Structure formats: C-alpha cells, structure tokens
C-alpha cells in the first residue's frame, strides 16, 4: 500500500518494520530515544520499543560504533545512528580498522552485520563542522557496502535491505532530504542495494549523481530539456560497490557525461567514476567527462557563500550545455 510520507518518515517506517520483524535489531546512538533523533527519524520509537532497543548513548562515537561491532559479533543486528557525517570521523577507526576488516583479517571467522546510518551534506547553514560529504572516504574501504538513498522509497527499502546483509553497511541520509515529500509503498520488498537507478531517460547527455544532488540533477535535466537537450539521470544509490555497468550503458548511449557530486572534486567519487568511464568507455565519448563538485573550501555559514560552494542547478545546466555544444 502506498502512502504519502516524508523521507524522515520513510526512514522511521523502515526502522519500525525492522524492529518489529527481528528482535535482534536495536537502534543505538546519540539522542535517538527521548529526544526522538536529532533529525526526528526515531521519533516515537522509544515508546513503542522501549529503552533497551531504542538506546540513547553517551557522546562517544568511537565507542558506540565499536559497541555496535561487538554486538553484531555477538549475534545482534544493531543499527547505529551517528548524528552527522562530520562526527563520524570520531568513529572512523572502528569502522575501518574493525568493522570493514575483521572478516578478512580473521580468515573468514566472523561477520559484522552492522548498519550505520548518518546524516550528510550541506544546505542548512550549519557551517564547516556539520555540512560535509565524506561519502567517498567510506566508499574507498573494502569490506563496506555504502548506500545513499535519494528517494523516500529507497530511504525505507535500503535500510531494510542493509539489515539483510551479513557485513557492515553505511547509509548516508542527506539532511536536505529529510522533509522531502513522496510516495512510499510500505509493502514493497526491500530495495535493491546492488544497482544504480535511471531516474530519467535521455539521449543526449548522462547526468550521474547521488544523494541530495539527485533533485538538482533532475531539475537541471528539465531545464536542459527546454533547451533541447535530453538528459539521462542516473542515481548511483550504491556508492560501494559502484554499479559501473549502468553508468557505462548510459554513457555508451548518450556519449556525454556530467558527474554531479557534493563532495570536493579532489579524490572524489566523481574522480573515480570519471576514471572508470575513461578506462572502459573512452571511445564512446564525444566530449571529456565533466564534473560539478563542491568548491574546495570548508562549507561556510552565510547562505550566499554556502550556495556558492555547492553544486547548483544553474551550474549543472551550464556545464551540460557547454558539453553538448562541443564536438556537435
């Protein structure tokens, strides 16, 4: 049955279903209980599931993520919420050195079925310690699966799919998406967490993006269409492992690609995708791959400066036009 709900409510719907269907599942993190979650994703769950399963933690990111790893080793299915991606750097040691590593390093003796959710991205004037996009760092790590749901259906379905994984999964929820309205089929099976999705079909240009930039890419595609350029929009959805096949199929059709990535350009996911397109579809290209990324500055507070630092619809349109004007 399809229902209207925000992205935040879709996350909550996924959490509630997971908690109902598997008693090993519990949610742990800063202010997930009484406060209802910093972004209100877990609002009301404490009342329904109690403090053992909706577990407020001390402000100890490294240790509550590490405790999630230990609980996963002990047969539980923990969902750990880290309030923001910037704070997750305090837990990077546990995620990289333990969660992602233990299975291989132990010769396959253990699995770490841990789900870590965190808010990412800029746009709310939260300045340089709450607004960054480090998804590429996590996508760099073997042993992790990295998800970036951009639609409300995916916000719910990818969480449920992540809980079926035997290994650690990191889920990035863009803060600008939480109030996004949408339709969610709550009886749909869990979402696919292997493949990218083509969100708009087109013939002239491929816009490749993920997370909070999807809405910008779709808006840019509409504007480009008015200019006679039909864009195909790919929502990566899964940042590790990257679904190169879907990207290459589209680029082989349109022969032009713009990658829209809220991360900084240097060492970005956009860089990785660009390299893969060059390696595997070089002769399909009619123009060099273009990238629209965040300016290489700590994200500033002032609205006009924050806007200037981030990928914008107008920039995507401009880059798309230029690309299509070349080598006509």
């Amino acid at each position, binding site marked *: 049955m399809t229902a209207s709900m925000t992205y935040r409510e879709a996350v909550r719907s996924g959490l509630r279903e997971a908690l109902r269907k598997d008693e090993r599942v519990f949610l742990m993190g800063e202010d997930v209980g009484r406060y209802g979650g910093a972004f209100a994703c877990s609002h009301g769950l404490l009342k329904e599931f109690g403090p053992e399963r909706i577990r407020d933690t001390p402000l100890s990111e490294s240790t509550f993520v590490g405790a999630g790893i230990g609980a996963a080793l*002990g047969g539980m299915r923990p969902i750990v919420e880290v309030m923001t991606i910037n704070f997750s750097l305090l837990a990077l040691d546990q995620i990289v050195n333990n969660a992602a590593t233990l299975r291989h390093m132990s010769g*396959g003796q253990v699995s770490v079925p841990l789900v870590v959710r965190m808010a990412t991205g800029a746009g709310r004037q939260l300045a340089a310690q709450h607004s960054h996009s480090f998804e590429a760092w996590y996508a760099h790590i073997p042993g992790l699966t990295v998800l970036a749901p951009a639609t409300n259906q995916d916000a719910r379905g990818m969480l449920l799919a992540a809980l079926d994984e035997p290994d650690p999964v990191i889920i990035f929820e863009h803060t600008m998406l939480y109030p996004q309205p949408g339709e969610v089929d709550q009886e749909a099976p869990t979402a696919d967490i292997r493949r990218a999705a083509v969100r708009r079909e087109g013939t002239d240009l491929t816009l490749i993006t993920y997370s909070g930039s999807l809405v910008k890419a779709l808006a840019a595609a509409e504007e480009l269409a008015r200019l006679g350029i039909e864009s195909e929009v790919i929502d990566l959805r899964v940042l590790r492992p990257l679904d190169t096949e879907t990207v290459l199929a589209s680029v082989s059709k349109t022969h032009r690609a713009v990658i829209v990535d809220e991360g900084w350009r240097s060492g970005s996911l956009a860089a990785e995708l660009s390299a893969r397109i060059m390696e595997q579809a070089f002769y399909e290209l009619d123009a060099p791959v273009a990238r629209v990324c965040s300016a290489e500055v700590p994200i500033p507070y002032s609205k006009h400066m924050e806007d200037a630092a981030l990928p914008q619809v107008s920039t995507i349109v401009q880059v798309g036009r230029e690309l299509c004007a070349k080598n006509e």
Partner: protein
Amino acid sequence: MADEKKSDLSALSQQRALALLGQMLLIRRFEEKAAELYSLGKIHGFLHLYIGEEAVAVGAMQALSSDDEIVSTYREHGHAIARGSTPASVMAEMYGKANGLSRGRGGSMHLFDVGRRFYGGNAIVAGGLPVAVGLALANKLQGRKRVTACFFGDGAVDEGEFHESLNMAALWKLPVLFLCENNLYAMGTGLERHQSQTDIQAKSRAYSMNGEAVDGMDVLAVEAAVTRAIETIRGGAGPFLLEARTYRYRAHSMYDPELYRDKSEVEQWKKRCPIETFAAKLRKAGLLADDDWKELQSSVAAQIAQAIAAAEAGPWEPVEDLLKDVHTPATKSAQSNSAADAPDEPIANQAQPSPLVKR
C-alpha cells in the same frame, strides 16, 4: 593487591600446580623460539613478545569459562595459548600459513580463534575495548551469562576509547572484565611519562566501577583476583577494572635499542620472573620434584617442535583467494556468527586435563 590467603598454595593440587607452571613455561619457550625463528626469517612483520607477563594470561584464563569471551591485543600469543589455541595454529599463523589461526592473514598481531570465543588480537591500541563493550551488550540483551574479558595495556589507558568504554559499560552495567596488563611502558614511554594518575585501577572510581590491582607476576594471585572480579560481574555488579602489574622483559617488538629504560630495571624485574618464582614456591611446598620439572621441559619442547613442524609443513593460502572473505559469501546465512550462537562446548583452556601432566 590480591588477597594473599586465596593465592597461597594450600588449596592447590599438584596436578593443577604443574598445569599452571607448564602453561607459563610453554608460552615462554614458544616465544623464545618465535624470536629465533624471526631472526631466521621464518616470521616477519611485528612480533611483540609477552615474555615476563605469562602469569597474567595463564592466571586469568583459569578463572574464565569456555562460555566467556576474550578480546585481546597485539601482544596476544600468550592469551591465545592459555585460552587453548594450539601452539601449532599460533605458530602457523606467524609463518603466514593457511593452517594458521587466521589463515595467515593476520600474523602475530591478529590471532582469531572464534571457536574458543577468542575475538582477536587487535593492533589498534584500545581498539578492542568498544568491541568488548558491544559483545557484553549482546550478552545482556540476549540474557546470556557470559562475561567478556578484555585485555589491554597501560598505553590503552591514554586513549579516549578506554574512558568511553569504561563509562558506557558502567552506565549500562555490562558484564565486562577490563583487564589492564600494566607493563609500565606504552611502547617506549614510561607510565609516569604518559599518565597523570599512574594508579590505573583508581580510574575505575571515576566511572563508579569496581577496580583493583593485582601482582601480575604471581599466577595464583591473578587467578584469585580474576575469579573474584568475575564473581562480582556475574553477580550483576557491572564491569570491573583489574590492573595486573607486570613487566615485559623483551623489546616492544622484536628489536629496539631499549633507550627508554635501564638494564638494571629489567634485571630487578627478572628476579620476579613469574615462572621461576612459582617453580621455587612449588619446590618448597613439595609440589615440584626435579623429575616433574624435567618432564615439563621435555613436554613443552615436544609441543614446540610439533608446532614448528606443523607451521613448516603448512600450505600457503592460494593467491586466487586474495579477495575471499572481504565480504561474507552469499551462501553463508546472514544470521550467522556461528561461535556466538553455537551451543557451549568445552575447550582446552582449563588447567585440569593438561597433556603436560601424566600422573
């Protein structure tokens, strides 16, 4: 310090006495041999020797049941062997062979024996403490009576995760034994140069947690102290911080010039050698005859020879398996952490039925 009455010899059978001595001796000789093999190029990477600290692992493991869980450090050969991992599987791991505990992927610092609930040597200082907290949380949530014993050194006390983990475990009354092996050096930095409060067990008070120090050179004292700590934990009093005061005789890893301590200090501590002092006590009490000692020596030598033979003969993991187990194979059930869920089975860490003791 430990209650002397409980760590005396009066209640000790000769069989148990020889088993404790034999385990310490096995660990000592095993590591001496490992050091030789390192020099011969058979073992590579880092090799952190436990020599001098054997009483802590052997004493502590006596007090833990096969059901309990262990999280360890990168100086963990002694922990693994005292837990019951075979010397052959530990040696093969150091050789990097596929018959090693971790299939040769971890080496000296990453011995995993999950069948014995030994959750690994962790080479990030304090990195195991949060994991131990989580294992204990899982036990609490599932109503299991297991205790998670987490070994770490005095260097780990410098890390934020030590304080975070003690706080969280105490806040949630989790069944964790935090067992600090204070060997007075964080690599080359002496305790008084890295801690403002050098009485480590005193830090337990800051977290409303039980804490105590024990002579880590005395195997019976360690056993008694860990037994008491485990009793309080199982009684529902929450976690316990036990500081075992001990000393490392060798370099931090295989070689270092030891510029950070005086040779005389090492010599002083060697007078308190956990093996020699325990053997002397047993002789005095009439529990260790010359023949017993010889028999222990030859039994240990045979086990080590067998371990080396197994390591030498072991296969290398095929290079085609390089990427295997980055992720769990799809065929493996998502539910499984088999050791966590497995029915309890006896393991070989308890001192009584030791192959070292014939009579």
